[in-house]
């Protein structure tokens, strides 16, 4: 096992003080992920360093930060993939969120938006395996159909979105519009819409999407889809919502003419 001596430059901010960067040097295995380096800096050098983390395997979405300016999940990002061995690895909190302290951001308003969309976390699974977000991982594996056990009508799965906020940080419209539902909020609306036929709920969801801070604020930067670690493709979902809204507008217009 080879050890790396990694230099970190971590954004520091405590309420009432001015922001700055602190340098840390940690020894970690060369197979380590960035979260292991942050953990080492905290455990060995500075217990006042605050950062978010829980699962270490991209299910909780809490650890999202910017690594050298790019939004990533440090738990699935290998140090050797982002560190050139010379310049320090710069760690910043996400953009477009208020900063609580150091790398911790305030996700209150984010979850308010996700609650407004109210997407259920479980959904129906695909009828084949393997299932992956990484096309290279499955390039050699042919999709195989799956049978169901006796008492099952479908397999269930969690939605791909882990509510990490990376898309919100990458989106330029989030910076400009305080109340924009954001790629995550709109993608969640799309997913919630797909799962319901209740006309009241559909009207509510499409109303949100069609509203002042909905799909029309998106100006096609596509940064959300590029940055998403879970292949949610929020941009695609926003465009799908737009299609539905336009189609329903046209059918309503045509409907009126026939009357």
């Amino acid at each position: 096992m080879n050890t790396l001596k990694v230099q970190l430059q971590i954004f520091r901010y405590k309420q009432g003080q001015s922001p700055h960067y602190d340098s840390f040097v940690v020894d970690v295995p060369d197979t380590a992920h960035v979260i292991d380096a942050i953990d080492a800096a905290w455990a060995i050098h500075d217990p006042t360093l605050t950062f978010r983390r829980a699962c270490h395997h991209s299910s909780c979405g809490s650890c999202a930060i910017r690594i050298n300016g790019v939004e990533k999940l440090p738990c699935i990002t290998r140090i050797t993939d982002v560190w050139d061995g010379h310049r320090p690895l710069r760690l910043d909190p996400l953009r477009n969120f208020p900063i609580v302290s150091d790398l911790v951001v305030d996700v209150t308003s984010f979850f308010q938006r996700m609650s407004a969309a109210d997407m259920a976390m479980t959904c129906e699974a695909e009828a084949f395996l393997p299932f992956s977000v990484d096309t290279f991982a499955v390039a050699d594996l042919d999709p195989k159909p799956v049978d169901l056990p006796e008492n099952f009508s479908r397999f269930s799965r969690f939605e791909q979105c882990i509510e990490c906020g990376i898309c919100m940080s990458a989106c330029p419209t989030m910076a400009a519009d305080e109340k924009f539902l954001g790629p995550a909020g709109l993608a969640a609306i799309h997913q919630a819409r797909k799962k319901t036929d209740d006309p009241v709920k559909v009207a509510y969801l499409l109303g949100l999407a069609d509203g002042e801070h909905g799909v029309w604020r998106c100006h096609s930067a596509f940064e959300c889809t590029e940055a998403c670690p879970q292949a949610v493709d929020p941009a695609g979902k926003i465009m799908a919502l737009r299609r539905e809204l336009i189609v329903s507008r046209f059918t309503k217009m045509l409907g009126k003419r026939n009357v």
Partner: protein
Amino acid sequence: MSKLDYRKLSRASRWLDVRNRKLGMWAYALNRITGIGLVIYLYMHLFVLSLLLRGPTAWDSFVALARSPYFLALDVILLAGILIHGLNGLRIALTGFGIGVGAQRALFTTLMVISAIALWVAALKIFRV
């Protein structure tokens, strides 16, 4: 400017921040820059047209200016703006309806190459006049 306005302005100015961002963001920023440029051009154009109201001398002196190579260069820049904004706008219209979302980067590259070629051909014609 009050503190609140300054904050909003500095946040909104992030549309220009293409550091560490991908092709889609470049398209986004370019569209905004060319859009602002074209709006400014529009006002200038209307002003120039208003010279017609001032009679032949005013108009003729403008036309003489418009023949100078510096002015023709500005015309080429204007055409670049129109091509970039127009063709990228086509891409945005398509993807906005869900057509070609997966190919948005390839679409941008292709359309910008077409713009470059069209611009080159147009520049040649403009300067030969």
